[in-house]
């Protein structure tokens, strides 16, 4: 990594966007860089749209604003794709979408992963639905070229013992199945 990289997560409250942001920032550190996770908090309730910013950089991170025009946008629910893009992304930015099938944003390079299915299959489920942040974390690591062992170590650091196998399995599956759709 040569320069600071910025990433925004768009999701719905309850989908685990804050945890995903934390994991990514932690992975950056694990990977020898600096990392930052900066969720945006509002009065929103479970189900309402939310967002979080992530930065990674080889040198100290001084930025503290929300990511206006990030290099990457992670869309946690297909429904949000349009809204997420219109919030801002660099012209040469990349979009990572959680969707059951191949979708693409015309204007930008797009990756797709079926995080819901992966999570469900791994048994990562609550009353509200699957824990998709773990597979999404795997997918984003892949897109950002973060090595799989760094990804795994980050998960193990966060949840030592606890569900280790399942988490690693789901994240690994996503790491390996996230697909570049266009460009």
């Amino acid at each position: 990594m040569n320069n600071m990289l910025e990433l925004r997560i768009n999701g719905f409250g309850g989908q685990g966007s804050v945890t995903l942001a934390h994991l990514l920032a932690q992975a950056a550190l694990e990977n020898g860089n600096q990392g930052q996770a900066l969720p945006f908090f509002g009065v929103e309730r479970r189900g309402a749209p939310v967002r979080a910013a992530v930065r990674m950089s080889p040198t100290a991170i001084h930025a503290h604003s929300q990511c206006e025009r990030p290099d990457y946008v992670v869309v946690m629910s297909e429904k949000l794709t349009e809204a997420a893009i219109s919030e801002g992304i660099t012209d040469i930015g990349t979009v990572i979408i959680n969707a059951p099938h191949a979708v693409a944003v015309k204007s930008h390079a797009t990756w797709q992963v079926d995080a819901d299915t992966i999570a469900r299959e791994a048994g990562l489920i609550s009353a509200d639905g699957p824990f998709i942040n773990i597979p999404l974390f795997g997918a984003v690591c892949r897109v950002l070229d973060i090595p799989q062992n760094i990804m795994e170590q980050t998960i193990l650091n966060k949840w030592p013992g606890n569900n280790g196998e399942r988490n690693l399995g789901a994240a690994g599956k996503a790491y390996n199945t996230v697909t570049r759709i266009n460009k």
Partner: protein
Amino acid sequence: MKTAQVIMDTGARAAALAVKSARVDVVPGYPITPQTSIMEAMAAMVENGEMHARFIPVEGEHSAMAAAVAASAAGARVFTATSANGLLYMHEVLHMASGGRLPVVMCNVNRGIFAPWTLWADHQDSFAQRDTGWIQYHCSSNQEVYNTILQAFRVAEQINIPVMVNFDGFAISHCLMPLTLPPQEDIDRFLPPHEPEWRLDPAQPSSFSNVTNASEYAPFRQMLSDDIMASIPLVKQAAQEYKDITGMWDGDTIDTYRLEDAEVVALAVNSMAAELRLSIDILRQQGIKAGLLRPRLVLPFPAEDIINALPQNAQVMVLDRNYNFGHPGGILASELKSVLFGRRNDITVKNRVMGIGGIDLTRTYMATEIRAMLDD
């Protein structure tokens, strides 16, 4: 010898970890967004035995500060934290803490104030307490929050004046960043145990703050004013010794970036000042000789250090995240002008208020504003 540990954590948790490593005795607390996470962390640390202290879940902030000052008068090392309307609600007791020379340390997690309600950062809350007689730091990173709380306890207890450590809500408090934790033995070396020279003590009964005739009252106030000014060398010393012990440095009274040869100086505090470094880089790329001056200590106002640091004939662009009601701009600009008056007539001061109620302050926005101010 143990070595420092690097973790990833939020600004709010950084504050709580500093309080723990300061071996604080009593923490009265009351929730308010975005400060709540500090109190939650404190409650958990006390409950699970990580920290040997008392957490007092009071019923409001006026009571939080009252419990804090009283515990301090009893001889305890005391911490609390708040934000926005919580801070405003404490106002009366803030005056008591300083007037009574009780070295409480408090974090204020900056947030815009009511009315109307906003949850997001600006600096009206802490700046509106500038006349309460508290020393005020304003921090621009998680690490600085941690470091500053430890320095704050030292300064507060050396000079018996309460200290407020401010940082932005969300942008710092909820921002996860790498955090270096020095070994506890280093902290203990830096911050000696609290041994107040006076406390409420049945063995030597004495009373605190009776009604006082003007002839005695006025000197107490004069000493408070004088001692607040006298804290400046202590602040510098604390920063220096903290650096000697831990290797970490956030500036002392001020922090600067590319200032030496600057013709245009941006002046701001808190997290926006961190982002401003990137704006400075942008401006430099655009051929403007820009630099940054960040007062880390805002009260006492480090007039001498600022006067000495400002390059000849500089244009100072003060970016205030607060209003100085009754004047057309912000408070930092007025403070600066008042100390430059008659001493640095070579300097031009320009001022904009921005980022109110949480408006996002990006490097590009601030760079553009500074460019525009060149024409003001």
